[in-house]
């Protein structure tokens, strides 16, 4: 066999292998519908992965004809080339069976909110400071807790409700 023939046969073999590789590794192209269907329904069904059959709890799975009910908020938009779509709104959280609380009567008396709504005892310090109405659980020495948290020279602004000024000099925790 001449060297030319050997070379030709080698190239032919390489081309065949390459062609076969190309043919085997190339996945089917997506259907290019403008150029004719690339995928027939039979072929498509054959490409469906064969996975395990998932269990669909009948109590959870919605009826096939009642998928995700949706309503429009307002009348659908007028059709036109540049029509703006109406909002697509789903009917989630309908809360069936839950009683809707209707509007109350306009109150004749104010809704009282304690002046200590922020949890601060206004008998002490400035408004910028906050002596807790109730100290955290486990605090046995309130003055130590206040010192540890950076409170300094806090005055009694009204009544010494929590007994933090035993010497009655108007400054808490100074003894």
């Amino acid at each position, binding site marked *: 066999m001449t060297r030319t023939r050997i070379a*030709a046969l080698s190239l032919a073999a390489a081309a065949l292998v390459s062609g076969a590789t190309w043919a085997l590794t190339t996945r089917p192209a997506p259907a290019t*519908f403008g150029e004719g269907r690339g995928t027939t329904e039979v072929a498509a069904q054959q490409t469906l992965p064969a996975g395990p059959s998932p269990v669909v709890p009948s109590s959870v799975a919605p009826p096939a004809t009642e998928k995700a009910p949706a309503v429009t908020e307002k009348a659908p938009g007028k059709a036109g080339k540049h029509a703006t779509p109406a909002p*697509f709104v789903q009917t989630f959280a309908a809360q069936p069976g839950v009683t809707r609380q209707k509007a109350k009567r306009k109150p004749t008396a104010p809704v009282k909110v304690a002046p200590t709504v922020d949890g601060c005892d206004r008998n002490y310090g400035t408004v910028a400071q906050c002596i807790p109405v109730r100290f955290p659980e486990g605090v046995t020495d309130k003055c130590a807790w206040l010192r540890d948290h950076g409170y300094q020279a806090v005055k009694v602004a009204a009544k010494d409700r929590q007994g933090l000024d035993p010497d009655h000099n108007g400054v808490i925790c100074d003894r």
Partner: protein
Amino acid sequence: MNRSRPLMSRSNRLHIAQFLVLTLVLFLALPDRPASAGANLIANPGLESLAADGFPVCWEQSGWGANGHTFALSTDAHSGARSMSVTLTTAGQGDRKAMMLEDTSCAPNVTPGHQYDLSAWYKTTTANTVMTVFRHDVAQGWVYWTDLATLPVTTTWTKRTVRTPQIPANTDQIVWGVTIYGNGTLKTDDYTMVDATQTVPDESCSAGDKCVKGDWQVMPFQSSVRAIHAVVLRNGNVLLIAGSGNDPAAFAAKTFTTAIYKPGTGQFTAVPTPEDLFCSGHVQLKDGRVLVMGGNKDYPAADGSHGYKGLKNSYIFDPATSAYTRVNDMTAGSWYPSATVLGNGDVISLGGLGEDSHGMVATQYFNSAQQRWLGLNEANQTWNFWGLYPSMILMQDGRLFYTGSHVFGNGTPGSGASIYDYPTSTITPVPGLRKKDERDQSMSVLLPPAQDQKVLTMGGGNIETNPDAHRLTDLIDLKQASPAYTAGPQIPQGTMTGGVAQTGDQGKMYVSAVLLPDGKVFETGGALHNRADPVYEASMYDPATNTFTAGMATDPVPRGYHSSAFLLPDGRVMAVGDNPGNGTFDKRVSVYSPPYLFKGARPQITGLSTPNWAYGSSNTITVDGPILKAELIRPAAVTHSSDPNQRFVDLPMTVNGNSISLNLTSNPNLAPPGWYMLFVVGTNGVPSVAKWVKVG
């Protein structure tokens, strides 16, 4: 002996060899196969094969509502012999759609984490259409997943392709179709679905701990004001409002302050502040200006004769002029009012304390078109007291979900959470929130993406009874027919002053939760007790897995009462404020760089077709490389762990190389009008810097 004549001449052999060499060279020079060139996963995609009922095999007629409709097969096909036609004649309630059958034979199998390009050829006489996807959850069965894109009106066969978000965990199949919900006719044909998952690049990271924990930096300067209220403006600057800043001396002197912080330069610019806007509410209007409502009319009296009093004043801050302009007064004084922007751009404000220190029970409604607060009798009233800074999140149908997160208060009636329907002035309770009376300065967020309609409420305490703040989180799916909170994962524990580790059920109030552009939620800051005992802890919550990743880097600055954290347009998180009970205020500024900022190059948005986006539109951007997802994040307007308008709106993509069309929902309740930060996330998980987009 005669030599036999060769089969081919030397010349023939050379020509063949040349041909084969050329073939080989051409083969080797061919580009890689396009990423989208996968198998079509749709059964009977061209609708040519009919079942016994006369409808295409593997397809079903679906939808609901009392609407006149017709399903038909049409010979007007894109290819082959037939297409599917759905006609609505009396639309107004419900929808119709031809969907793939939800069975193991017909529904395409999918892989969690993968993305798929869904395509259909269509004609429609109405724009009231949307590509709708359901998924099969291995635990829940078939459930609604998401809506992808509106199909514009067209009289010629047009192909529409949309890429799904990453398939959620526990999903093994999806089905999809095109929904029609307006009067008209929709024809579809030749469906395709191909795996479009992109290669994830090498995630090597050389930044050490920062790769997994991120990194905090305390700025070498302090805020010029007590940053109790923070609003990210449409120009990327941050509006920091103090008013009197919880400083009665400043109040007495009428020294009210506001500053504009410029993250790019670290500069603060003072803004003349007309009243004490401390304890006000605030929200961005649809034009990007900021509506500020209420504030502090007076501090409480030492003798207990009155508590805090709410202002009726309201102002609009304009980023273009850096100035406040007064609008008409609210109908009632409002100290700690909520502020939620609606799908039409109007604003509802609920709760707070009135001018008399009592509970404010009016529904206060700002009409965006008229640029004024409606009168008491012009707005629908329930006369319900919602507490202080009630977290009211806009639902996809326009109702408000009261998450149960609030500020102050103790022992309020009810289940702690509810749904408020403004048009009908009705309220329905929502069950399941644990420790409803210990949700003071917890934080609620509408989880990414907003389309999922899930809310997480985390932490909280009670400033009156002052227990240890807890670490409970509760999660609710507002897509359910009867939504109820269910227990979420516990907030990870951190350390307190002196490095003391938290124990038992100790958690945090004053918590901040920030939606990040990679779709996770950064949880940071907080304290254990009423204005005391800061907790040094930060974690990353992943909505996709409902888990916290503990051990994120912690802000070295305590962030308790009057602290906030929020997302900057460059993808970092800024934290400000701390106001412990001793009356001091920490004005240091911290900035957090999440781990994604250490994981590679950031994708670049190199072009934006328009910054003005209409609902249901498709808007083209160009990028410099492969993109995993894109979204809009509404800029922060936060105070007291409350930012009910914070949301992350997914933008399903139509990908054509580096040109990507982003499909905006047609539903304004999912993305209320206004300016948003547009982020794209690269396949390496790294987000871009935001571009600003005006929606609606």
